């Protein structure tokens, strides 16, 4: 009884606080000085119509760099955890089955997620043959995607990827940008992974594109520092401002946003691929 009373009092208190906030809230009739400076500067200084991209890439560029770093760390953590589980599964097989199968396990663990269609079936068959009596092994073949999913994927995936590229290359002109475009590309790759069992994403390619684009992003920021002077880290104005509303305008912003898009897309695609493949190889 006293517990319910306390909960009731707590709910009333939270409601009272929110009520106070709601009563005092009124929508701003004009931009505050900082926001109006951003809106003015995005068109006159940086020569781009999308003020949100001006804030995200240029005025608050350091925050975006930090965001990309956080996403990278999250991806690395997921990859590390899933990989470790796979290796411990290999050790388990090693314990139960003796030394004869060690090379097989090592091969499948080292080759990771990278082998092609012929490479996957062989170690798995070896493993399932050698496991044989072990009923708790979760080695199972994936069910094929349905006809609708396959046909839909064949038609839609190219369009989805092109849409993603459009979104991150036009981030300075229209809504959207690197993060949104990258997620759209990753969702297209997810559709391909779900539809085709023979589709295997090369993790080496993903790692290369992800690390190169991250490196190039930092290099673009440092170029501003070198070319424009001390407090101009991530300032995009060292490239030509170009014509207003043109694709190649607004200095380095389209380049930076495309790099962010490639980075985010390959990171999320590698997360999805490692989640998908981790269940297969346990």
């Amino acid at each position, binding site marked *: 009884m006293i517990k319910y009373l306390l909960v009731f009092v707590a709910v009333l208190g939270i409601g009272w606080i929110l009520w106070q906030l709601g009563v005092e809230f009124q929508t701003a009739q004009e931009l505050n000085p900082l926001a109006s400076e951003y809106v003015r500067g995005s068109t006159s200084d940086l020569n781009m119509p999308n003020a949100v991209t001006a804030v995200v890439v240029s005025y608050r560029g350091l925050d975006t760099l930090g965001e990309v770093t956080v996403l990278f760390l999250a991806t690395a953590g997921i990859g590390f955890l899933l990989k470790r589980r796979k290796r411990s599964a290999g050790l388990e097989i090693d314990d139960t089955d003796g030394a004869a199968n060690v090379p097989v396990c090592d091969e499948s663990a080292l080759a990771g997620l990278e082998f092609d269609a012929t490479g996957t079936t062989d170690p798995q068959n070896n493993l399932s043959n050698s496991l044989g009596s072990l009923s708790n*092994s979760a080695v199972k073949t994936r069910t094929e995607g349905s006809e609708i999913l396959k046909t839909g994927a064949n038609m839609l995936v190219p369009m989805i990827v092109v849409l993603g590229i459009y979104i991150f290359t036009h981030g300075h002109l229209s*809504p*959207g*940008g690197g993060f949104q475009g990258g*997620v759209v590309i*990753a969702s297209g790759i997810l559709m391909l992974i779900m539809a085709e069992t023979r589709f295997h994403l090369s993790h080496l390619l993903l790692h290369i594109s992800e690390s190169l684009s991250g490196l190039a992003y930092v290099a673009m920021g440092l170029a501003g520092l070198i070319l424009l002077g001390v407090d101009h880290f991530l300032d995009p104005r060292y490239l030509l401002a170009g014509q207003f509303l043109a694709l190649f305008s607004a200095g380095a912003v389209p380049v930076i946003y495309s790099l962010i898009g490639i980075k985010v897309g390959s990171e999320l695609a590698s997360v*999805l691929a490692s*989640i998908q493949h981790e*269940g297969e190889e346990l």
Partner: protein
Amino acid sequence: MFETITLIFLGLISVAAAIFAIYTRRVVSAVIASGVISLSASIMFLLAAAPDVAMTEATIGAGLTTVIFLYALKHIRSSREGRDD
């Protein structure tokens, strides 16, 4: 006026989906309901003239998060089945 009505309607949908997600017995339904909340939130952002945020919410909240939850659910189920055998 139309905008206000739509906003209130979407808010009611998201509150209903949240309550449904808490009280439903099937986890898959709860995951789908959380996706519905993200989707209506993204439409609300769009109506509030924030298309950038709306895109992020629709792709990440409604798309990717739901898919990752479903993947995690599938993995939990397959490991449970393996233990039961």
